[in-house]
């Protein structure tokens, strides 16, 4: 009896041990759930979605956890603030590392740099994924060609972002992979030739129209190619291309490129994807992705305080110098001699005046675009009511009296075009940001005409812009339908450019770009490619610090500060392959 039990016990133990050990091979193979693997992605559907993934990176939201607002594809910090369009805004200690960049004190370990680098190279990697797969998964030839060309377009865009921000950057193609362990790519060559080639390929292979407005077409590729030429000062290459774009270009849904009737429509959700939108980042809300595609790069850039658009966060305040630039003379022309900053001409503002103390806005002649560019006290702020000045400013002493406007949605569009809640702490909007809009194409053409063509043509291009701006239907009006300020803008009189000569014509074109494209993230990069950065930015610092405390002591050092430092983390990770830009350490 006893022995029987013992034997039974031993038998049971053995059975258990054998049972477990015999199944252990499969026991130690567990397939993870909810992730796609190679085989699923190497399919036509996989490639199409990988391309969407590459487009998705345009808005800077490369990381699914947390808002990547440091990436800022509209370059509000690098392009506009560093170019003197605007102050960082808010309190100086709020995003102190952005303040450091705004005063050209950004250290290589600044997370803004790191985030932007990670973003653009992630975009490139997403394009490389498409390019590695596109011809190997059985797609029809036409579709494969189109997808491949779009991937080249996008890779060109991301690489160009890197080139214009850091100058010496690595060129990364499909050969670079984690597995091949060849990802430490040197930055010892200028990559403009590769960027040109990307847009050339895209231009040659993309159709004129696409099945979706958000896709790049051949004209978008042409415009980016032209932009590259502008940065390379290849005006003779750029001019015929720009003329082609102007005469034949169309949007991906077949609308011939044209200026919109109203300047302000370019910043209005209701006019996304207009004829003026050469290529835009498609923004969206209520799309099942919280607000991640709602211009998250701009989530700090709204007026601040009670009754303002929202509680967050008072960044990106237009500069006094910028607003002064919109002063026009008795003929409705800009003060190209810089006298707009003279005490007599400077635009009257409410710096130092609380909202409950009286203030009368400026009465002088102004370019009407000023009130679509900067929120000024006493002027209607879209449909949010009259701008109360200081009450909507977080720290006036630090960053001046103005609020951003171009990136802000209308109150009436809350729900569809604007959103106050889904990020839980900051607003979002569905206003497309135009990476290139047609006005810019015209102004580049004007630049080329000045350099290598005809001053008369340049004048004509600039006047197209000024005439559009002069549309009285587009003046900001008060509740009693009167213009909110004394707007006066005119085209340059015929022959003015020729009469004043090439230098003055150049100045006029450049100044028009300052006004037309202010707060759109271009200014700093334009100043650098023109070679005007040190002069203009140091003038801005000197002038502006009379009024605000944030940029006291700031200085632009030529040529070091023409490009930003390569992020230290990447240099460290590169094992010495990446070299820091001159002047940074």
């Amino acid at each position, binding site marked *: 009896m006893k022995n029987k039990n013992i034997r039974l016990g031993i038998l049971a133990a053995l059975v258990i041990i054998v049972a477990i050990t015999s199944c252990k091979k499969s026991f130690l193979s567990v397939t*993870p759930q909810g*992730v796609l693997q190679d085989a699923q992605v190497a399919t036509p559907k996989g490639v199409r979605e990988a391309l969407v993934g590459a487009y*998705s990176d345009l808005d800077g939201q490369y990381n699914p956890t947390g808002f990547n607002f440091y990436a800022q594809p509209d370059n509000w910090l690098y392009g506009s603030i560093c170019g003197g369009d605007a102050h960082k805004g808010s309190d100086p200690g709020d995003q102190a590392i952005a303040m450091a960049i705004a005063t050209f004190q950004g250290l290589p370990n600044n997370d803004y740099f790191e985030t932007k680098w990670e973003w653009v190279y992630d975009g490139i990697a997403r394009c490389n994924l498409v390019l590695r797969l596109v011809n190997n998964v059985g797609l029809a030839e036409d579709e494969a060609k189109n997808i491949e060309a779009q991937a080249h377009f996008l890779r060109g865009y991301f690489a160009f972002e890197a080139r214009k921000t850091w100058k010496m950057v690595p060129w990364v193609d499909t050969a670079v992979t984690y597995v091949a362990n060849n990802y430490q790519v040197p930055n010892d060559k200028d990559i403009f030739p590769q960027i040109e080639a990307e847009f050339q390929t895209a231009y040659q292979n993309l159709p004129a129209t696409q099945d979706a407005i958000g896709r790049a077409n051949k004209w978008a590729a042409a415009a980016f190619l032209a932009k590259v030429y502008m940065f390379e000062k290849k005006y003779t290459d750029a001019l015929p291309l720009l003329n082609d774009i102007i005469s034949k270009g169309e949007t991906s849904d077949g609308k011939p490129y044209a200026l919109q009737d109203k300047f302000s429509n370019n910043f209005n959700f209701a006019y996304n994807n207009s004829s003026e939108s050469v290529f835009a980042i498609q923004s969206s809300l209520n799309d099942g992705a919280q607000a991640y595609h709602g211009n998250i790069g701009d989530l700090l850039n709204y007026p601040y305080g009670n009754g303002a658009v929202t509680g967050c966060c008072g960044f990106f305040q237009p500069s006094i110098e910028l607003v002064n630039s919109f002063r026009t003379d008795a003929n409705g022309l800009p003060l190209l001699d810089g006298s707009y900053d003279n005490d007599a001409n400077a635009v009257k503002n409410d710096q130092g005046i609380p909202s409950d103390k009286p203030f009368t806005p400026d009465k002088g002649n102004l370019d009407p675009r000023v009130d679509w560019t900067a929120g000024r006290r006493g002027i209607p702020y879209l449909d949010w009511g009259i701008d109360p000045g200081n009450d909507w400013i977080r720290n006036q002493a630090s960053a001046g009296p103005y609020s951003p406007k171009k990136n802000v949605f209308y109150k009436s569009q809350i729900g569809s075009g604007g959103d106050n809640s889904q990020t839980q702490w900051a607003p979002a909007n569905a206003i497309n940001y135009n990476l290139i809009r047609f006005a810019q194409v015209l102004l580049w053409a004007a630049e080329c005409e000045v350099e290598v063509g005809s001053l008369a043509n340049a004048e004509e291009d600039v006047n197209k812009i000024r005439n559009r701006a002069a549309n009285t239907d587009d003046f900001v009006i008060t509740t009693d339908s009167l213009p909110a300020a004394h707007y006066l803008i005119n085209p340059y009189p015929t022959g003015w450019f020729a009469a004043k000569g090439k230098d003055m014509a150049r100045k006029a074109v450049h100044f028009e770009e300052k006004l037309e494209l202010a707060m759109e993230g271009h200014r700093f990069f334009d100043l650098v490619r023109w070679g005007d950065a040190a002069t203009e930015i140091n003038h801005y610092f000197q002038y502006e610090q009379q009024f605000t405390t944030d940029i006291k002591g700031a200085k632009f050092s030529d040529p070091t500060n023409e490009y930003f430092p390569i992020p230290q983390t990447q240099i460290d990770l590169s094992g010495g392959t990446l070299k820091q830009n001159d002047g940074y350490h």
Partner: protein
Amino acid sequence: MSQVVMAQKTITGKVIGNSDHQPIIGATVQLKGESTGTATNAQGAFSLTIPGNGNEILEVSSIGFQTQDVAVKDQSSITITLQSNTSTLNELVVTGYTTEKEKNLTGSISSVKGADLTTIPMGNAEKQLQGKVSGVSITTSGEPGGGSAVRIRGFGSFTSNNPLYVVDGVPTTDISNIDPNDIATLSVLKDASTASVYGARAFAGVILITTKHGTPGKLSVHYDVSYGNQYPGNGFDLMNPTQTAQWTWTAMKNAGETPKHDQYGDGAEPVLPDYILAGKKYGLMEGDPATDPDLYNIDPDKGPIYQIVKANKAGTNWYKAVTRVAPIQSHNLGLSGGDDHSRYNFQLNYYNQQGVVLETYLKRYTARANTEFTIHDRVKIGENIQVALKDNPTIGNGDAGGNEGNAIGWTYRENPLIPVHDIMGGWAGTAAAGFNNPQNPVADQDRTKNNEGRTTDIFGNVYADIILPYSLTFHSSFGGDYSNYYYKNFTYLQYENKENNPTSNYVKEGANYASSWVWTNTLTFDRQLGDNHLKVLLGEESLGGYGRNVDVSGYNPFSADPDYATISTTQSSGRTATDGGGPYSTTYSLFAQANYNYKDRYLLSGTIRRDGAAVFGPDKKYGVFPAVAAAWRISGENFMQEATWVNDLKLRGSYGEMGNSTPVSLTNQYNTFMVSPEASSYDLGGTSNTLDEGLRANSYGVPETHWETNKTLDFGVDATLFNSSFNVTVDWYRRTTSGLLYAPQVEATIGFLNNYPVINVGSMQNTGLDVQLNKHGDISSDWHYDIGVTFSTYKNVINKIADNVDYFYGNSYGSTRIGSFTINEVGHPMSSFYGYKVAGLWQSQQEIDAADAGAQKESGDPDATFQPGGENPGEFRYVDIDKDGMITANDRAVLGDPNPDFTYGISAGLTFKNFDLRLEFYGVSGGQLVNYTKWFTDFYSSFPGNAISTRVLNSWTPDNTHTNVPIFEDVSTASTNLYQNSYYMESGSYFRCRNAQLAYTFTQGSLTKAGIQNLRIYVQAINPFTVTKYDGLDPAISGLDGNMGVDYGTYPMVKQMIVGANITF
């Protein structure tokens, strides 16, 4: 005749332990020199017939206690208190998969009895362990249910240094649901020879816990109760409203500005307003028509918000406002008993610790049923199971590395002029201009009161023991953990705040479940052959599990009524749902252990374990982890017989390897891609509200990744001296981890990955010393004392991180406003502090000019300045580490680290008759902390309008130059508040009285009539005092591995006053 009658006397009595006054079960009570004897029952009681001549002496003995002789004299009933035998040489210690006599241990194990843990009424055993075991450091916050960082002998890994807990044979990483009252023993396995039998999961040490089992005897009922209060302390030292206003003026004047402020006006002196807000007006005086209460409205459905808020000129102490004296109570009912065939222990616990911060608490109900059945003289089966229900809202700054935006964080930021409520009882806040953007913490906490967060957890195992021939025993155990968590949060529109006020109401709801199982089979051979003793253990173990979660959120329910707002009542367009989870990695292990000793004098042990894990690629699944140990009991040698003062002396040495696979996920060996609405989908069609689905790379597979290995060398001495009254254990160790598992960020050229592949890189080393001393003795026959000291020190150094990676920061961007304070760098300890070293404050313009001249000379640039970005008297002057004449990024350096030089614990007990007094202390010496709160409170320009620290009263001025507090000014530069520097760093040393307890145990007589066997009552003070120079709320700052010691305003350890009783029926 009468003498004969007298001789037949029956003596009854009870045997209790000296430390807890609990009955000792199974103690032997013997008439000295005779064979007459008995054993105590489950109530510790005995009855013995003795001659009754008045000269009898009872010899009372029990394992773990000193044998004691008691003269009977003329007593008929007697209570005998046994002194616990701190040498405990013959006591069985729970070791990996088995038990061992303490004297025959060859490795480093520290054992603690359950009763010694529960001296401090915390809901969590790990919190009670602090200071009680050498080599174990525990940093914990005072938040109810807040986690703790438990580190055994420092750090061995970059990502995960939590010890493995094995509760009744079931491995787990979390013991927060185990009620400490249920714990019978706790063993900490510290070296490789003891822990490596757990192989792959033992790398950070193992803590073995057994829960209480029933013993044969009649039903015994215990009831333990404690009740007390917790006192929040004083909070931060901040200026009152008048000082705040004056220093606001000073800050602007110091920056060369003309002072003015939305509330304080623009005069030469600031003026405190009567009202801080009325509609959109600020800084109003009494009688202003805007303050007409009829205008008031805070219901957005009724029109625009119109708040009217009176200034609190006396000042709001926000810390006081958001904290309270909070009750804590614990009830534990235990029923145990059994007979030869079955034994049971049933425990019910209720623990309710209200937090000192409003609306935080831990409420937990647990029921435990442990039973065991002897179904045959060779077969025993049993089970241990616990069900726990838990509700534990927190403010979320416990152990996760801190966070500024929580109830404690707002208390040092919200301006004191703001009252808690507006004039109509609504919340007041920074909607009033001039106070920047903090939030009203009282409002925030109050709004969480309808939130839900409930955990249900079932944990336990079933087992069988079969005694086989040839000294073999077979043991099989199947156990696991099944838990479910559900939460619902409602975020209200915050009309009173500057920011987030147009944000809509927001509902978030979610649930998850997690299940894991483990099956263990062991075969043990145990035999004494003459002077040789051999014990061999063979075993196998497999484990796995599965878990999933679903989280949904939505916006703008029709009504904010918490009874109405659910996910399905939010607006349909903004809802999101996410899910995650899947199978856990499976592990299959085989292990063997052999212990041999000769005459208990020469002891040898060897262990080997082979683990296979699903997380590794096909060729790297298996890891083998061996260990050996040897010990020599010198006291057993003949030459030691002369040294009678040495009761026991043993030298130990061990070496072994342990593995780690924790950071590796199941996907690590595969290339994976993800479809993410947020980061890979896109509105290609320009609809502005519809996304085309897209995908992105998620990670790249590295099938070559293999086990991380740490090798530990340990030498130890155990000594019992002076008539067994003094024990000392000393261990020196060196633990080297190689092939460290780490997911190094890769250059961005391959794209951004959320999950960089975990690969084997780098190495680090910990060297340390653990010392444990115990002394006990008798001062007189009524006075007894015991004292225990633990001392632990370790030195951690990172030897290598990865190829081309010599450092990484302690957190990703954004967790402090000026970047990461912590760095993990080769040649330094983990989680070191990094930044500029403050040499002092600039004392004069001449000093600056001289430094600038130096910079100009060094650089050849006539415009160069010593400190690019600005430098003024009273601001920080940094040390020019690279001596290039200027302060650049290269001048940042490791400034210190939070690893203490040593930690120590002292426990002292004193017994006088029925009174016993226990004092426990814990100390940390050396190591630094970063008091990040200073960034907000000591620099005006960080967040103007915030509260200001009283430290600023001593800030630099031309007349107050002997200070380390910089000039208070509205200036933000590298010289003020833009970068990490040593100003924030403070000493982290402290000495804390953890516990002072005075108890009285009633002797039997009167109680017996009431059916009470034993009654002990006590009063207790927890954390009655802490000695520290640290300026923050509390110096016990934890954090995540690699990012520790940064104080964002931690939930402090608080004083508690407790009364309690232990009753046995």
